[in-house]
């Protein structure tokens, strides 16, 4: 009797399990008729993950017939680029979509068959609406391989309070001569330097030569590092430090060091020039300057441009992916559409790469950047956007940037062991032999 009861009980249990299993099966079949495609995304910037996650939600809403799941890995900067390099060199293990920083991009375009997918078919239809200078940074032989997040317009960040204290009007500064003259007054009246110069990075020097139409490399990748404009500009920076005495070397060596942020947060310098994307660093790391900083166009050189497009990250698609076409369409919608471009501003605080996004009402809505810098940020940008060109990112670019950071800027501006001419010539000769 006991035995038969046990058999009955276990049969009932078994049936219940089978039936519940069937039930579960039918329910998944109903809701998930189309299986989402998983795409892998590698980035070195946590903020970019948030942007892409948002883009996936939009994509899945707009394309219920081909939903995707984005699996994102956020790595440290060096680690991600090295991992990608090894994956592409060995022919296995690369993600579908990947962020590559501009100074590393040329590394991935070496050789006759880059491991990245050509994006011309998604870029060309919207060509007239894009700031194409930004696309050229990630192109080789007329083929585009990466899509940037921003324009990276170079702007000047002024400390309003120190200018008021010194009785100098910020809006009177138009040329570099005006800037240096104002700097002398600031130093005299406030005892604080007008600005800080990077000695171990390139953001103080590179935009200035670019605004004068010069570069590290020429259009065809030839080395023009030691030309007259570059020499004079480096001399001007050196003079700002040691002759005019309106600048000091950035504490910690560069504008991304913890020491600089702590020092600057106390209002220790009256201005700094950095690209537009540097707004995020102010908001995040220098909160005490909220309401004190304003953004204005760069001082100009005679006959020079009003700004330069600096920095950037090209999002690319690797040839190793199994769903290249889908990844390409998703990337295009995320970053090349007007909506996507507006999101680079509202989510990331970047200046969008589509010019028609700039006039959209969404751009004038209040956010943490307008709270910090005031509401006229976009007017300042609109005034300079037409002047932003590309930089020449040839095969020697990663090497040139390294030499600029470690040798030229440091030896001339900090160590003073070489003159601008010596340092530029030495680095240029080395690059020419590579």
């Amino acid at each position, binding site marked *: 009797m006991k035995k038969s009861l046990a058999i009955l009980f276990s049969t009932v249990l078994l049936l219940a399990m089978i039936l519940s299993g069937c039930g579960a099966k039918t329910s998944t079949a109903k809701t998930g008729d189309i299986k989402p495609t998983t795409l892998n995304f590698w980035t070195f910037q946590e903020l970019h993950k948030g942007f892409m996650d948002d883009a996936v939600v939009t994509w899945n809403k707009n394309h219920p017939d081909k939903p995707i799941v984005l699996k994102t890995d956020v790595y440290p900067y060096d680690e991600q680029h090295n991992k990608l390099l090894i994956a592409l060199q060995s022919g296995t293990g690369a993600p579908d979509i990947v962020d590559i920083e501009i100074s590393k991009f040329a*590394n991935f375009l070496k*050789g006759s068959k880059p491991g990245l997918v050509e994006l011309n078919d998604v870029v060309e239809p919207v060509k007239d609406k894009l700031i194409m200078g930004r696309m050229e940074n990630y192109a080789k032989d007329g083929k585009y391989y990466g899509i940037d997040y921003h324009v990276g317009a170079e702007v000047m960040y002024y400390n309003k309070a120190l200018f008021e204290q010194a009785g100098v009007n910020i809006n009177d500064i138009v040329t570099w001569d005006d800037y240096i003259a104002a700097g002398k007054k600031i130093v005299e009246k406030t005892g604080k330097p007008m600005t800080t110069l990077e000695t171990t990075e390139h953001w103080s020097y590179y935009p200035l030569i670019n605004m004068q139409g010069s570069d590290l490399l020429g259009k065809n990748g030839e080395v023009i590092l030691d030309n007259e404009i570059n020499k004079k500009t480096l001399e001007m920076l050196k003079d700002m430090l040691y002759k005019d005495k309106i600048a000091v070397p950035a504490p910690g*060596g560069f504008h991304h060091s913890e*020491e600089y942020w702590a020092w600057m947060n106390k209002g220790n310098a009256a201005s700094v020039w950095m690209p537009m994307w540097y707004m995020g660093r102010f908001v995040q790391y220098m909160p005490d300057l909220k309401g004190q900083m304003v953004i204005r166009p760069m001082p100009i050189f005679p006959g020079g441009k009003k700004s330069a497009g600096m920095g950037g990250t090209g999002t690319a698609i690797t040839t190793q992916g199994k769903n290249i076409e889908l990844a390409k369409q998703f990337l295009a919608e995320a970053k090349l559409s007007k909506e996507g471009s507006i999101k680079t501003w509202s989510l990331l605080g970047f200046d969008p790469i589509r010019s028609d996004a700039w006039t959209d009402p969404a751009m004038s809505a209040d956010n943490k950047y307008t709270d910090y810098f005031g509401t006229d940020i976009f007017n300042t940008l609109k005034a300079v956007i037409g002047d932003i060109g590309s930089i020449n990112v040839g095969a020697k670019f990663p090497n040139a940037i*390294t030499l600029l*950071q470690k*040798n030229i800027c*440091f030896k001339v501006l900090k160590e003073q062991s070489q003159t601008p001419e010596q340092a530029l010539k030495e680095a240029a000769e080395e690059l020419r032999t590579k």
Partner: protein
Amino acid sequence: MADPSVIGLGKPYNRRSRLRQIFSSQKTAPYVFVLPFILSFLVFFLYPIISTVIMSFQRIDGPEDVTFIGFQNYKNLLNPHFLNAVWLTTRYTFWTILVLVPLPLVLAIFLNKKTTIGKNFFRSAFFMPALTSVIVAGLFFRLAFGEQQTTLVNSMLGVFGIKPTIWLQDADASMFVMVLLCTWRWMGVNIIYFLSGLQGIPEELYEAAAIDGASEFEQFLHITLPSLKPVIMYVVTISVYGGYSMFAESFALWNGPRSPGEIGMTIVNYIYQEGFNNNNLGFGSAIGIALFAIVMAVNLLQLFSSGFFKKEGT
């Protein structure tokens, strides 16, 4: 020995007994036991070394873009960056050996004395840094040796009226920081080596010397030092290797191979920069082979000069 009933003719083998036969055979068993080592040696050591040697003669632009360029990569080694890296790493190795042999030796002698109080505490305290992540330690040192007046080291020096130093943007000061970081990290390990050496010296030698009227210093000079010679040689040898292969400390202090003016550019940092940052894997391999040759040469030189091979021969 194998069970004769199992391997006897006419009886079917079963798998278990066959395995037992292999493991108990004096001929095959040793090979089976060393097989894991041989396999891992072949896959993780010999194969990478051979492919590094091959790659050092190549220019590699992509998986399908490989060209043999003869000795070009080795010719390119004669550039100021590589020479600077060799010179810097040699100086670093010299300083670390100069500090990391005598200092742990003296400390080990103190920690070996019966009269020292809190021996176990000090032993573990000295050893603790070796267990710390070098990246965490490097980050701590980077922030502690910041250039501002308010950073840890500068504010401590300020108490004595010493002006703030820009530690990590000056060649000499940064060498000091690198050697200090290395000392902090490896002293405990070297103390352990010396302690184990000291504990192997028979107590009777000291007693006899004391009866003969030898002072403590004479005992150290004539008993401790000669007895510790093999340990000292071992520590120097691994310090040469450790010094020349230094990477992580410099990487953490300057957040990558980007020390200004290359004041922290060691040879391995240079491999990293060329191989990965500049996607120049062929040249990176050539630097690696050169580093191997340098370490071998220095170690052989040191072993020859200390009479290591002579002793073996006699």
